[in-house]
């Protein structure tokens, strides 16, 4: 099976008041096409930092990030942005919809960025909002929606271009249990369509839905559970196992 996403000995150190503070201390992992991987761990253990590095939002202090067989950690910001347009969808904990755009415009954004015509983007957006139970919300301002609805819009935006990989940072972290369930159903649906999911979460229900759960502590991967076969698949050996 192809590794769609791979981290090799990733290190990230933040400079806090002139003092180097390690956030990741040599993380290596591989994620295969169509996998649903959840990462769990206490606050401040480096989960979101890992996610940001895999998405190309930040640059590692050391190590490599590979996506679809290409090493991306040295790419320019512009190249990374163009790569994300078609290949990566991202879901944030706090939804992060653009507040001055309507729901429809938020969802159409990635479609327009890959060059879809306005009419085509509107059609796809309408279908997605219908699928996600948000018909008739196209012209609504994001702040008028509930948290669950906003997160579904954020999911629609992340899935609009049918990306190969969906990265999500605590997608249910700011939702009540009913809204969290809805989001989980949508994530599963994406996995069933063959999309690769890498989700940082505190939510045991999200982790339970994953194919694999990675545990992090103090900037390192410390455990892995393959929920289907129970075999760890972290590459290499040593501290990460």
């Amino acid at each position: 099976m192809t590794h769609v996403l791979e981290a090799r000995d990733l290190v990230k150190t933040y400079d806090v008041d002139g003092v180097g503070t390690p956030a990741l201390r040599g993380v290596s992992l591989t994620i295969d096409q169509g996998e649903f991987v959840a990462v769990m761990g206490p606050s401040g253990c480096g989960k979101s930092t890992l996610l940001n590095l895999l998405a190309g939002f930040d640059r590692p202090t050391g190590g490599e990030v590979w996506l679809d067989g290409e090493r991306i950690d040295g790419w320019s910001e512009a190249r990374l942005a163009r790569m994300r347009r078609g290949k990566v969808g991202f879901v944030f904990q706090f939804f992060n919809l653009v507040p001055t755009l309507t729901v429809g415009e938020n969802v159409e954004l990635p479609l327009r960025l890959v060059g879809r015509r306005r009419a085509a983007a509107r059609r796809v957006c309408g279908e997605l909002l219908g699928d996600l139970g948000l018909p008739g919300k196209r012209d609504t301002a994001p702040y008028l929606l509930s948290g669950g609805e906003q997160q579904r819009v954020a999911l629609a935006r992340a899935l609009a271009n049918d990306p190969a990989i969906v990265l999500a940072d605590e997608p249910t972290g700011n939702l009540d249990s009913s809204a969290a369930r809805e989001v989980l159903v949508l994530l599963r649906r994406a996995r069933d369509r063959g999309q690769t999911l890498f989700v940082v979460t505190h939510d045991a229900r999200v982790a339970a839905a994953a194919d694999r759960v990675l545990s992090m502590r103090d900037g390192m991967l410390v455990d892995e559970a393959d929920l289907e076969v129970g075999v760890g698949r972290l590459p290499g050996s040593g501290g990460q196992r």
Partner: protein
Amino acid sequence: MILVLARLAFAGIRTRLLASALTIAIAAAVVSSLVIAVEIRATGVTPWQRTFDAAHGAHVLANTPTAADARAIAARPGVTERTEPTPIASTQIELDSGDTVDVFVAGLEGHPSVNAPVSTDGTSPRDDGIVLERSLAEALNIGVGTTINLAGTNGPTPLHVVGTAISPAQPRYPRSNPGLAWLTRDTLQRIQPSPGQWSWTVALRLRDPATAPAFADRAVADFPPQTVTVDSWQAQRDTALQDAQPVTVILTAFTLLLMIVAAAVVSILVGARTSTQHREIGLLKATGMTPRQVSLVFVIESATLGLVASVIGFAVGAAAAPQVATASAATLLSPPQTAISPWHLLLAVVAVVPVLAISAYLSSRRAARFGVLQAIHSGEPKPAPRARLSRAIARLAPSLPVQVGLTDLLARRRRAIWLAAAITVTGAVLVFTLSVQAALNARPAGEISDVPTELPVLIYTLDAVLLVMTLTALVAVALLSVRERIRDFGILKAIGLTPRDSGASLVAAHTALAIAPALISIPLGVALYLGIYAAAAGDTDGVDIAPWWWLASVPIALPLLVAAATSLPARAASHVRVAQAIRYE
């Protein structure tokens, strides 16, 4: 409570030094312009009085068709000193270029006891010699020692220029055209032998100088209309200092325009502050502060900055006023001098501080009325519902980054309106300046202009000040916009906008916003020019407006300038890192 509010206001000033400095700079420019407008005439009063004293000036100066009429006026009660009537003839100076310049020549018999020409160079008139009024000599570039030809009944008469002089009763040439020169009575008779072609002037001193206007009115009433003119010393002073009038009109207009820009800048800055401090304001309200008190903090802050700006602007204006009034110096014994009046400082404070305070109040009033919980939770205000017009405009955008940028800019409706207003005013002033230049260019070659040299310089300076202010404000607003939208830029980059797209969205949105105001500024600028021209000249007959291709450059140049100004903040937008921006949540 007021102390608490004042403390919060001063904390706001200290923590936002750039915005505070910008507010002070713009408000100080308004005050300087206003102070120059109200002081420019006053800077010439003392030098004129000195000239009047040196000339033993006439409280009343009468011009009559006959010597008998002049003597009749001089015999009126209240006169304590008088000169013998002096004949005046109209003639022409023939220049080396072949051109001729009209001039009045006064035939003196000895040194007049009242209203004597005050020598500035050379000697008094003597046979075959002529003394030119100084501004006339300067305009024609004729120095003492040269020989000129004066047109006479018997042909050109060569005369030596033996001196230059000034008179408190003679305004600057060529604003007062024909100019004035002094000869001996004998020389005058050689130029114009026929006394029937002479007019007469008589200079009088009164027992009570304050009664001069009434004396003049009564004296004129004794003669058929339009036959004699009688000027009081007050009228002579007003005429002599009239060079200040167009400058005063222009500066008053510029003051009003600068005030609009200042109101726009303060409204935008305070509006942006209330937006970025949304959570902080929510916390203040949670501790018991009313919306009115929140607004009061911003009012105190803006009023304080206005007071500081008033003092700075007053000092700059008072120092600059004599420089602006330099044109008057040609007819005065000493150059214009600073004429500080505390009333002018008070006027500046009264004019500027309320504008800033009201702008701050109106801008913060709505922003202070929101739910405390919403403010504390979200940390940012809810965007206003989008108007149809803004949707339509955004749809016209040629690319997605431009559409996103325009949508965001138009979502902050008041800010967009104020920004458009500032750009419109700046464009209108550019059009005004181009029209002034066109009028100067339209003068026939070689014609001596009655426009003081300082006037175009003053207009260009004010224009540059306004342009710099508007562009600086634009940079500040765009920077604030980046700061407010740092999370949005992060999200957009996470979705796939490149750094270049992010920067372009900011630049293109502001540039697109500038297009409509730049177009509107053309008719507005023309109207401004015609209005100021009419106010300064009395009518708009023969007015020259900038040619259309000059005017067409304004809606091209302004958006380009806006693009250049916003390119700096655009770099900040393009450098926003996604991970850093997301951390803002």
